[in-house]
């Protein structure tokens, strides 16, 4: 008798669970609704509508040229499958020197020569993008080296401490190496 009463309670057609259980998958629609503002923000960073990146590191005079460096995101490196951890920086050449610089390279640590200058910047000289590998054992004292190669063959270099270039990467490495 008791069992019957309980069962009829569970099958009560007016209970919220009974009426809504097959519509619950609709809750997944909340995901894009909640994510819309961050999607718009993300797209404006990718599209360059906000400028060079989420955090501008600064501008430097490098030989006769001026370059501005920025972090794409104010965040640590992201694991890119078997390629390991990658950190994205963006850089812009000044309008006067955009046509004079053939290539810009970035790497952690001083390059020994042009062949090891690091990853090359892709895209418009006003919005070059670098996907820089960050080894897990990288020292947090490491320097970020930028090598600029002119169309005339001239090479000029500059460097930032990793702390200046990306505090989030230093934070990330500290946590990883603990």
């Amino acid at each position, binding site marked *: 008798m008791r069992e019957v009463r309980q069962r009829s309670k569970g099958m009560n057609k007016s209970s919220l669970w009974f009426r809504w259980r097959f*519509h619950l998958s*609709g809750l997944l629609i909340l995901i894009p609704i909640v994510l819309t503002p961050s999607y718009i923000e993300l797209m404006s960073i990718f599209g360059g*509508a906000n400028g060079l990146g989420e955090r501008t590191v600064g501008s430097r005079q490098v030989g006769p040229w001026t370059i501005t460096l920025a972090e794409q995101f104010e965040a640590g490196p992201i694991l890119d499958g*078997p390629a390991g951890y990658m950190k994205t920086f963006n850089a812009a050449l000044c309008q006067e020197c955009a046509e004079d610089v053939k290539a810009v390279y970035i790497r952690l640590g001083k390059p020994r020569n042009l062949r090891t200058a690091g990853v090359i910047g892709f895209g418009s000289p006003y*919005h070059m993008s670098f996907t820089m590998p960050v080894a897990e054992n990288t020292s947090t004292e490491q320097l970020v080296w930028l090598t600029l190669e002119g*169309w005339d063959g001239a090479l000029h270099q500059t460097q930032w401490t990793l702390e200046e270039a990306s505090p989030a990467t230093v934070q990330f490495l500290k946590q990883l190496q603990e």
Partner: protein
Amino acid sequence: MNVDPKIKTHQKRSQWWFLLHSWLAMPIWLFLFFICLTGTIATVSQEIVWLFDSSVRANPPNDAATVLSFDEVIDVIERDFPGAYIEQITRPVKSQFALTAEISYPDSTSENVFINPYTGEIQGRAATGFNFRQFVRAIHGWLLIPFNTGFTRYSLGWYMVSILGIPMLLSLITGLVVYKKFWRGFLHPRLRVNRGARVFWGDFHRLAGIWSIPFIFIISITTIWFLIQGLLFEVGVPFNGVSTAPIYVARDDVPTSQEGRPPLLLADQAIAKVNSRYENVEAQMLYFPSTAFDHYRILGRSQAFPLVHESFLVNPYTGTIDEAMRVSEQPGLMLTRLSMRALHTGDFVGLSLKLVYFFFGVLLTMMIFSGMRIWTIRTFKATKAAFRQKKAFSNLSGGLS
């Protein structure tokens, strides 16, 4: 009461098929409905923008009917946006759309510029990044969940959506099994509007279903492929680029110059190089070299196999074609990937096919709604009855043995 036992087992089997069909989509119907609805909108998102934004239209003037060459378009951009850097120019498949050029400004912002393909008039500009088309696609394709967050390389949403291809394909198959002699529905279509909601939605579900067989098949198969594509990418099967290994201009082939960037081959010259060597290539997308060691990349839809683009890399210093990816040269996985995508979106013929996709997209979305209506009215009762019957039957056979 002498019932042929063969008929009885047959009836029972189709009853279970029917229950399977009913239960496949029901627990996820609202999510599936949302994905189909956004997909239907995504199919015609470019046309929706066309309706509301006159700057993306390509209105031909009354007199001149020739379209500008790529070089003429570049001249227009350089005249109107001095100092800007052109990243790519797209000539849409469909003649009713304006040319789009993506350009980057010295302040590091970038814009899409819409250019009349006949007059060269700059019709409008829009910041790159957020736009309606991509937004609808991103909702439909991966629920806006970001890619490469460290957990999965593709977006988690990609899998949540693409896995729906499986119940969709099973719904199609089980639907055709339970709809006895469904081909009769083609000859004797029935849509009773005056016999109550259950009858109407039932008729609608069957009628729309049989006419949508090819469409549902295409959509579910391509969706399952998207799932496989994501999984292949997760395990590191490389086919996400146009070429398997990137090709660069050798350092020795890049000239040095005391006066800054040396003059590159003109865009039209690069396209002419391709056209002189390969037949039936109509350049639709032109990507400018993204580094000093990069090529012009020229893309054109294959005339022989319009589901895929063919791509050509032209050395901007020497004019040699360093890579030609015609249909026959593309690796199988790449060809599959491009074809599946084109089949899923319907974006390879023009407006006519897009409208066909839109129509069947609306039907499919309504089928999910109608299925839910029928289910809530009928299937719950049927399930209870079937279980009662099964129990009674097993009690009976248990008693006999």
